[in-house]
């Protein structure tokens, strides 16, 4: 068996190597920038520079400003970094020739200031090294202090002390519900079984949301480290990273990272010679949104049809193959190394009284800048929308922000100053959710928005329970009629009554929360629904005879 990695040694060597470079170009190779053409940019830069002792080309994860990708950040000794945006092949040639070549900024390529509020207002914990390091190099992560938290936990803390640290940090689940992580860890630690499991849930699927994808494809080792610390603290010996099949880059990088970590003895038998063993593998999802629900996710890992089952028993009592199992969202786990490294008190000091730490949001919709941000809990929606994302384009007005995906709700303009944390969003009839944040301007019809999300839930319903399987379909039929202008007051009444039943009686979170977009748009924008209704008992025109498809 190969000997364990010497973290300090690797970090030292790596930092020395970096110090040789006079100039470095950090090229975002996360999914969004790759989709915008980052691969060509990277090739071009490499071709222009060639083998060079003092200039480095580093493929990195996501710095966040996705709408302006491909992004290239040039760092030069003694200079403020320059962030080039919308870089194409010609732009890459110019950057390589001018800025990297002789240090004169490339004049024809668009830039944004490095202190743009989009960047400067962020507080990056989970994404601390995303966009700074090569996700495919373990050494890069180690040089930034990676795996030091794991070493600290293994060598200086008992498992119970690690659980206690997580509890004291106040970390809550980032997948949506906000369940206290420490409590879950404690339950798994106390559970007995032949094998205990820890699972990272990377089945993110809310429309517009890609926080977990970015964490996984930009900094895979952070997730692995978090999961390994969780395993040590709870006595789990086997872990799974459940990643949806639609995230091929994340899967590829996680698998490469797992192999590297195993070679370095950061995973596998006797991690860092501690005597503690932890085996980890990636399981690829089969394309169902409902597999993000933890009981369905476990069924999928076991190779069965991804159907939710009744709880209790909870996974920590009886999970994978009947054994105690703990499932955490990817972002939750990515917080763990920092909590151990910097202490639970530091983490508890971030954010608000009840919601500690930071939250990653995927900004989408009607904003001047969209992309990924990590902000402290408690920041207001106004700061995110107007200060960081540059407001609403083309002179239109902010109308609502949708958070929490299909399970969430719409927050109208009058609540722009509400702090974004678990409690406040819930009070507004929305939820934190996993971090999708879609902004809508005044051209958007809110009943249409509700119809969109209900269609999503209808399409993703597994079909096991009647209220969700049929209820979402009939909710959609009512919304169809209303949106097409042939709905009547009683359609709206039946829709609301049906929504109450679907929420109260569905088996799992998907169905229980499917009516949320309807409830929240009705709460804040009821007039828009009423404006679309037609009177009862008015003889329909030829176009609206009953049963005629709208």
């Amino acid at each position, binding site marked *: 068996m190969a000997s364990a990695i010497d973290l300090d040694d690797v970090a030292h060597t790596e930092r020395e190597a970096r110090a040789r470079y006079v100039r470095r170009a950090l090229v975002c190779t996360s999914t969004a920038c790759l989709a915008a053409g980052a691969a060509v940019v990277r090739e071009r830069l490499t071709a222009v520079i060639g083998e060079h002792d003092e200039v480095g080309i580093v493929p990195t994860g996501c710095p966040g400003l996705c709408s302006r990708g491909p992004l290239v950040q040039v760092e030069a000794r003694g200079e403020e970094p320059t962030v080039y945006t919308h870089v194409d092949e010609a732009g890459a040639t110019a950057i390589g020739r001018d800025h990297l070549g002789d240090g004169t900024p490339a004049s024809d390529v668009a830039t944004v200031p490095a202190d743009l509020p989009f960047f400067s207002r962020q507080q990056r914990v989970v994404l601390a090294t995303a966009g700074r390091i090569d996700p495919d190099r373990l050494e890069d992560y180690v040089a930034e202090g990676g795996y030091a938290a794991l070493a600290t936990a293994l060598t200086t803390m008992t498992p119970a002390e690690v659980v206690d640290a997580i509890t004291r940090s106040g970390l809550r689940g980032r997948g949506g519900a906000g369940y206290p992580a420490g409590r879950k860890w404690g339950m798994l630690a106390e559970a007995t079984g032949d094998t205990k499991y820890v699972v990272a849930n990377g089945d993110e699927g809310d429309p517009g949301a890609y926080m977990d994808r970015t964490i996984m494809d930009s900094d895979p080792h952070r997730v692995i480290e978090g999961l390994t610390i969780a395993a040590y603290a709870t006595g789990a010996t086997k872990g799974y990273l459940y990643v949806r099949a639609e995230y091929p880059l994340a899967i590829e990088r996680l698998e490469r990272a797992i192999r590297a970590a195993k070679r370095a003895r950061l995973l596998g038998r006797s991690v860092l010679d501690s005597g503690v063993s932890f085996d980890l593998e990636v399981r690829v999802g089969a394309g169902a949104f409902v597999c993000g629900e933890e009981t369905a996710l476990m069924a999928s890992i076991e190779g069965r049809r991804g159907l939710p089952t009744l709880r209790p028993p909870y996974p920590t009592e009886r999970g994978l193959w009947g054994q105690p199992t703990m499932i955490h969202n990817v972002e939750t786990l990515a917080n763990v190394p920092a909590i151990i490294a910097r202490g639970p008190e530091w983490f508890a000091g971030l954010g608000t009284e009840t919601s500690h730490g930071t939250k990653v949001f995927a900004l989408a919709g009607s904003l001047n800048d969209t992309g990924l941000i990590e902000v402290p809990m408690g920041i207001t929606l106004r700061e995110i929308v107007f200060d960081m994302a540059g407001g609403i384009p083309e002179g239109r007005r902010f109308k609502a922000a949708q958070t929490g995906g299909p399970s969430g709700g719409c927050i109208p303009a009058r609540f722009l100053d509400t702090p974004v944390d678990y409690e406040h969003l819930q009070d507004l009839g929305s939820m934190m959710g996993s971090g999708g944040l879609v902004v809508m301007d005044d051209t958007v019809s809110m009943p249409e928005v509700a119809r969109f999300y209900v269609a999503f839930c209808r399409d993703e319903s597994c079909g096991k329970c009647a209220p969700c399987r049929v209820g979402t379909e009939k909710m959609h039929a009512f919304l169809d009629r209303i949106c097409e202008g042939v709905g009547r007051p009683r359609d709206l009444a039946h829709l609301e009554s049906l929504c109450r039943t679907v929420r109260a009686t569905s088996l799992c979170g998907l169905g229980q929360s499917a009516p949320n977009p309807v409830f929240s748009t009705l709460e804040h924008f009821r007039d828009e629904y009423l404006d679309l209704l037609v009177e009862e008992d008015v003889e329909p025109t030829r176009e609206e005879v*009953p049963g005629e498809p709208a």
Partner: protein
Amino acid sequence: MTTDRLRLATVWLGGCSGCHMSFLDLDEWLFELAARADVVFSPLADAKGFPEDVDLTLVEGAIANSDNLELAHTLRARSRVVVSFGDCAVTGNVTSLRNRLGEPATMLERVYVEQPDLDGQLPVEVVPTLLPQVRPLHEAITVDVYLPGCPPSADRIRRALVHLLDALEAGTEIPDLEWRGPDDLRFG
């Protein structure tokens, strides 16, 4: 005839008239009914147009064609209480089986051209336009009381009528379905 008696109508839309047959099975109770209400419109009575100021209208059959739809709106405007009478009115029932054949033209072709042994041809004269789909009565107009059954038995009809006539005579609110037992509600 005195003028303070209730005015009752029965209507036959897209159905087989089985509910009206069941209505006739009320037998001698029809005399009691006749003592309390005038039948002002019915396939069983000689009346051309749907009259005004009707107190209670029983509607058999689903909305299947343009005439059904028009009559439904007329009777709704002229009736105090509308009863969806029998499964075809309540759910579409047998009348709605043609929905699954797709467009009315497909159904007509199947029924009048493919199926007959001799001289299959499409009807062309004096036939109301078929709606794209057969729908229950309550999707076209507001319905006050539902009386399911295929057909509802005479007993079930009688129990419902007694309650409704009592309420109409007394001028009280129309009783909701809570007064009925499972026997009064069963589909089929």
